[in-house]
């Protein structure tokens, strides 16, 4: 797409949208995605939602201690997973990116294992739940300090540029992260160097309880890209295909060496920030309901049905298949057993130094 002229204009007046709330294609270009890819996007959306609801249940049952609900954020997350080249490109996600990592192909058993701190966790039980990572899929392990992963993401992109690998980095974060100094430091550096990276902000308008207008006086997040010398795209995050095409164009732009972009996906977090949060204190239930009416799942489903490639029977079969897969993953993650105490002093350094061996011994 970049090789011709870019399809999307940055800094649009309204969020870029390609399908209406009722699933009608409204894009001004011919849709070229084949049926398989369209259905794959829908499958990832459904799997993510079912998975998120399952994690919330597991937390309520006391089987995991924490969850960062991602329902409502699936549009941009699934889009990122679908447009990157897995195992080649790199992802620097944040803690509400469960849909992203699942759709990218991180096995559900690893994600649940991470949340339970069992042997199924490739991170060996070292972090609180909702902090996945995968060396195999180039997913940088999530860290809690907000925006702290963005400068490392830029460093990886600079390494790609230096070596001319043709790889791309996509990093994601919420709008709260854009207030951190490290966000500015990182995106500014990427702009100055023309690094092959796409910054995807999932703007759900609340950083826990603090609303967008208390976060910034900027009209929108995309506008901040002006200051960094790169295009900023605001996209309807509840429109999975708009997310897909805009992020794809930004990724291709980065891959071809044209430079970085900032994409703001306007989404909504249906659930509380975490199980410890009471979101009724800062936002009315009517607001949540209004956003749920714009939900990406029925929207994408209507889109497929309108094209005559989806029906009730396929829907039921899909949900059954996903449910069975995830049940099995939870079982496996739990059955693998808690991480052993012997791991506690490992991985601080490449080799365990003497003073840590002494401290380990003192544990008895």
């Amino acid at each position, binding site marked *: 797409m970049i090789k011709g002229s870019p399809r999307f204009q940055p800094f649009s007046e309204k969020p870029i949208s390609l399908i209406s709330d009722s699933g009608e294609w409204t894009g001004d270009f011919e849709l070229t995605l084949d049926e398989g890819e369209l259905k794959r996007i829908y499958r990832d959306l459904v799997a993510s939602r079912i998975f998120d609801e399952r994690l919330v249940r597991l937390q309520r049952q006391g089987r995991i201690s924490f969850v960062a609900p991602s329902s409502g954020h699936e549009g941009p997350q699934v889009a990122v997973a679908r447009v990157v080249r897995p195992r080649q490109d790199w992802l620097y996600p944040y803690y509400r990116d469960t849909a992203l990592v699942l759709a990218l192909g991180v096995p559900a058993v690893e994600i649940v294992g991470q949340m339970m701190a069992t042997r199924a966790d490739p991170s060996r039980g070292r972090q609180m739940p909702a902090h996945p990572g995968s060396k195999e899929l180039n997913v940088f392990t999530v860290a809690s300090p907000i925006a702290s992963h963005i400068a490392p993401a830029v*460093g990886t992109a600079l390494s790609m540029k230096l070596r001319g690998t043709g790889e791309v980095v996509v990093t994601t974060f919420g709008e709260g992260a854009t207030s951190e100094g490290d966000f500015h430091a990182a995106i500014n550096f990427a702009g100055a160097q023309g690094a092959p990276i796409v910054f995807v902000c999932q703007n759900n308008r609340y950083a826990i309880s603090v609303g967008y207008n208390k976060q910034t006086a900027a009209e929108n997040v995309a506008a901040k890209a002006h200051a960094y010398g790169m295009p900023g795209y605001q996209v309807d995050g509840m429109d999975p295909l708009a997310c897909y095409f805009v992020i794809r164009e930004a990724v291709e732009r980065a891959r071809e060496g044209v430079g970085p972009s900032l994409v703001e996906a306007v989404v909504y977090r249906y659930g509380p920030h975490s199980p410890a949060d009471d979101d009724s204190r800062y936002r009315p239930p009517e607001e949540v309901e209004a956003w749920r009416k714009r939900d990406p799942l029925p929207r994408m489903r209507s889109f497929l049905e309108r094209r005559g490639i989806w029906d009730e029977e396929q829907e039921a079969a899909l949900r059954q298949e996903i449910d069975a897969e995830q049940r099995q993953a939870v079982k496996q993650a739990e059955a693998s057993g808690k991480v052993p105490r012997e791991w506690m002093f490992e991985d601080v350094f490449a080799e365990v130094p003497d003073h840590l061996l002494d401290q380990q011994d003192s544990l008895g």
Partner: protein
Amino acid sequence: MSMQTIVQTIARTLDQEMRRDERVVVLGEDVGKRGGVFLATENLFDKYGPDRVVDTPLSEAAIIGAAVGMAVHGLRPVAEIQFADYVYPGFDQLVSQAAKLRYRSGGQFCAPMVVRMPAGGGVGGGHHHSQNPETHFVHTAGLKVVYPSTPTDTQGLLRTAIRDEDPVIFMEPKRLYRAVKEEVPDGDAAIALGEARVRREGDDVVLVSYGGSMGEVLKTAEELERQGVSAEVIDLRSLMPWDRDTVLDAVARVGRAVLVSEAPRSVGFMSEVAATISEEILDSLLAPPLRVTGFDIPYPFAYDREYLPGPNRILAAVQKALDY
């Protein structure tokens, strides 16, 4: 062999490592065309170009954070922080990302990188050009901390730091940058992290120090010799890990230890050394381990001499140990 200062050695070692390993890159403020404000990266830009000698925006968070991401992707970044006093905007990147990455990812990712920073007082720089923040780094699980005091040690330790699999904070005693000149060996000799160096042997008292204070400590040892007191001098060189065995063996043999560091006193590195001596070899001591340190005040512009541990304060501590 060639006569070199510490700062010349740094530039030469970086050059050698960049030639040896194309993964090694240098980044920081003014490290490119300018060759660094202290000239520690002189000539590298002309030799290796802007992709491997990166003039960064004025942002320590961007420098250290980007180094983490470069290391994760397989490069061997050497980041320069212009003065240790300016590391704080990048502190979160060091503490939360560089230091924790291996552990929190279960060994999936790591950040083999070096963060160089000139540190210490005695250069008339006032508070924001004189601090010794090494204790912050030692206290952060996952960082190695090195603080050499001679050109030869700087060469050997910088080599090791660049080749190490973990993030290394490489502190440079800037008041010794050009004050010490010595024959530095050619070749590829490296010095292991965590090995102290006995700079002088003696039987009456052990002086333990590192970094910028080593000059004063050696001067004091000479003065003690004139007074008939035989002092052993140990240069720790690495603070994390540190060479407990060399220190404990010497102090157990001699019975007296004076611990010198220009960093603030409370919970400074020498508090750890003193506690270790007390825990491990109390029965061998003729006097309690005594600290001579900077003070728990902001580094004072007008009082360099009073703030830094000089021969007078070190001599007084030695006398106290001898009289105990």
